[in-house]
Structure formats: structure tokens, C-alpha cells
């Protein structure tokens, strides 16, 4: 297993990593391409960079975070095509990419984050140990 920083993994702005605050996380990156093309980071106001490919698998504050950048492939989630599948302890987190390249999740929907790692870590902090519920909340009709 090769240890690399989140910055190398995703090509994101360093500020996001500071905000995320973890140094103990173990990250495993696989997949072919090296997404580092946008040094300004995904939070840049115009031209969002490409969605990264590969996978991220780390433990953050005691929770297993898995991000699969399927490049449009569906990995069993309910999300829009082209978005990564994001899981916390095996349960999928609904995430969305904004037009400016920033990200939100259903747990932090009104606040934007520069990349998928930042948005899933924010969700872990908010959850305070609680398990994600399946998509289509209880009683869903929509």
C-alpha cells in the first residue's frame, strides 16, 4: 500500500486538507489516471476540473470512507451518472457536484466543499457516529 496525501490523490486545494484536519488517515488509491490537472482545486469559480477516477478507501475519525470514481459507471448507487459512489461504513452518501466544481451532500446540503473527500469527511463529523440511512428516506414517495 502506498501512502500519499489527499492533495496528490485528488489534486485539491491545500485549504481543504487543513479544514479536514486528519493526518492519520490511510488512503489507498488505485485506478489508472492521475487526477491532478486542476491545481486551483475544484472550488475555483469557473471551469471545474474533471471528476477524478480511481478509488479512495480511508478511515477517518473511526469511520470507513470509500469513494469510487466510476467515471460514469453505476456502482449500485442511486445517484446521477458520472458522480462517484461515496460510502461511509458501507452505506451510501448522496453527493452532488455543483456547476462550479464544488460539492454538497445530503448531510451538508447548504454548504459547499472543494472535493468529494472534504464533503464525506464533513458528513462523518456531522454524523457523530450515527449510521447513514438508505436512500429514499422512510416513507418516501418521491
Amino acid at each position, binding site marked *: 500500500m502506498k501512502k500519499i496525501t489527499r492533495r496528490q490523490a485528488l489534486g485539491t486545494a491545500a485549504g481543504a486538507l487543513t479544514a479536514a484536519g486528519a493526518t492519520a488517515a490511510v488512503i489507498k488509491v488505485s485506478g489508472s489516471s492521475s487526477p491532478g490537472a486542476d491545481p486551483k482545486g475544484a472550488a475555483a469559480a469557473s471551469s471545474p476540473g474533471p471528476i477524478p477516477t480511481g478509488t479512495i478507501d480511508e478511515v477517518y475519525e473511526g469511520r470507513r470512507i470509500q469513494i469510487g470514481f466510476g467515471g460514469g459507471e453505476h456502482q449500485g448507487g442511486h445517484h446521477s451518472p458520472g458522480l462517484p459512489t461515496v460510502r461511509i461504513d458501507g452505506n451510501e452518501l448522496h453527493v452532488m457536484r*455543483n*456547476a462550479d466544481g464544488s460539492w454538497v451532500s*445530503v448531510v451538508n446540503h*447548504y454548504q459547499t466543499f472543494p472535493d468529494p473527500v472534504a464533503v464525506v469527511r464533513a458528513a462523518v463529523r*456531522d454524523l457523530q457516529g450515527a449510521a447513514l440511512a438508505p436512500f429514499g*428516506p422512510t416513507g418516501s414517495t*418521491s
Partner: protein
Amino acid sequence: MTVRKNQAALTAEEKRAFTNALLELKRTGSYDRFVTTHNGFIMGDTDSGDRVGHRSPSFLPWHRRFLLEFEAALQKVDPKVSLPYWDWTVDRTSRSSLWAADFLGGTGRARDGQVMDGPFAYATGKFNVNVRVDGRAYLRRALGEGVAELPTKAEVESVLAMPVYDMAPWNSSSNGFRNHLEGWRGANLHNRVHVWVGGQMATGVSPNDPVFWMHHAYIDKLWAEWQARNPKSTYLPAAGTANVVDLHDTMRPWNDVTPADMLDHRKFYTFDTEPVPAAASQR
């Protein structure tokens, strides 16, 4: 005619009637259906695809219609009740009477964010969070923790001064009044208030917190203020826009109501202080 009042001006009896009506909608299951609808749109509205409730021009008329439906449900319980609005430029701390135990209850405790007082605290057994994105069934808040300050009056004024309702690409990257009010761009008004409250209010199931309705009633009032100040401006786009609700397109989930139907709030309710038109001929 329904009159929507500033929450700070409600009498003790009006507060009691409002919270009792909320608890009754919760008991019957009606309340949770509104939460489900909202989260469905939160997850379905995307910048590059179909978008109706959020990050699009119809954010304002969609929520006006959504609040009207909710208010009608409240009034079936108690005809005297109307939706109060929360002017967070004035009542901007966790010490506001809004958060007192006789109204919405206060912020969450440090350990787990759980709201411990007021009519909506989990321990009452009357307000379980059923439509949720995680396992926690208790109402949570973290007032002022996600972001330190609520928007100021000056920030609101700067957004009300924007003369164009909305602009292409009609999403979270747009310039114009709608997106600045929604908060994806600029000073950040509506979105920031959700973050300031924290807990469920920061999530897709934000209507689980009753303050959702008072926050959106004020956003709705700011739309009316904007109309009064910009009488020559109107809803955009007018027609023929892919993935976006044009002026005369119908909006999901109702499919029988258009933004044009929602432009004049006075057909449905008035405010305790009506916006003063900038010119004699509004719209």
C-alpha cells in the same frame, strides 16, 4: 385573508396555537410527507439536469407553493394559524425569543446536538424525526456553530438591489437576484441560515426543524420586497429553457401551478408589514 406575522411579534397564545398545529400535523403523518417531498427535490434538483425546487429560477415560486400547501394543512387543524416569518437580520442570536422553551426550543446539547427543551424536544415523544438521512430520531441544532454570523441587513439590501431576477445558466452558478438570495453565490443569504441553525436544518431533510417554515416565509417575504423595489423586473426565463421551469411551465410535484401563478403573494396572504412599491405600477 391570512396575515403572516413576524415571529417576534407573536403573542403567547399565537405561539401556542402554531406549535400545537405543528404537533398535530406531526401526529397525523402529514408533516413527514412534506419532509419527504422536500428531500426528494433536494436530491433530484441538479445544476446540469432537471431542477425545480432548488438551484434554479423556480426556487422561489416552488417554495411559495410548498409553504402555501403547508400553511393550508396547518389551517385545517386551526384556522387561526398562519406561518410566521423569522427576520434573521434582526433576531440574530441564540438568545432570541424564537429559541425559547415556549416556542421552538433552543440549541442542541454539546454531546450529540439534541434539542432538550421546547415542544419539539425528543423527550416529549411528540416530534420524532422519522424522515431522516441517518439513524438519529431526535431533533438536532447547533446554533451559530456551522457559521458564526447570520446575514446582516446590509447584505440583504445588497441582494435586493439586484435588478435582474435570474440569469443563464439558471443554476447554482448564476448571477442575479435569485441565486444571491438562495446563497450559492455572493453574500449567501438563504443557504447560510440553514448552516447557522445546523442539525437537520443543514441537511436535505431540513423541514424536520419547524424553523424551516419561518426561514422560508422570510425568504418569501424578501422576494416580495424585491418585487416592490424592482417593479419593472419579473420572473425569468420566459420560455423555451431546457431543464428549467419557465414563467408559464407547470412545476412538479403539483403539475397544475406555474411560476406566473405564484408571482403575487397578495392573492394568498399579506404580511404584517407589506413591502412598499418603488413605483405606482407594480408589475
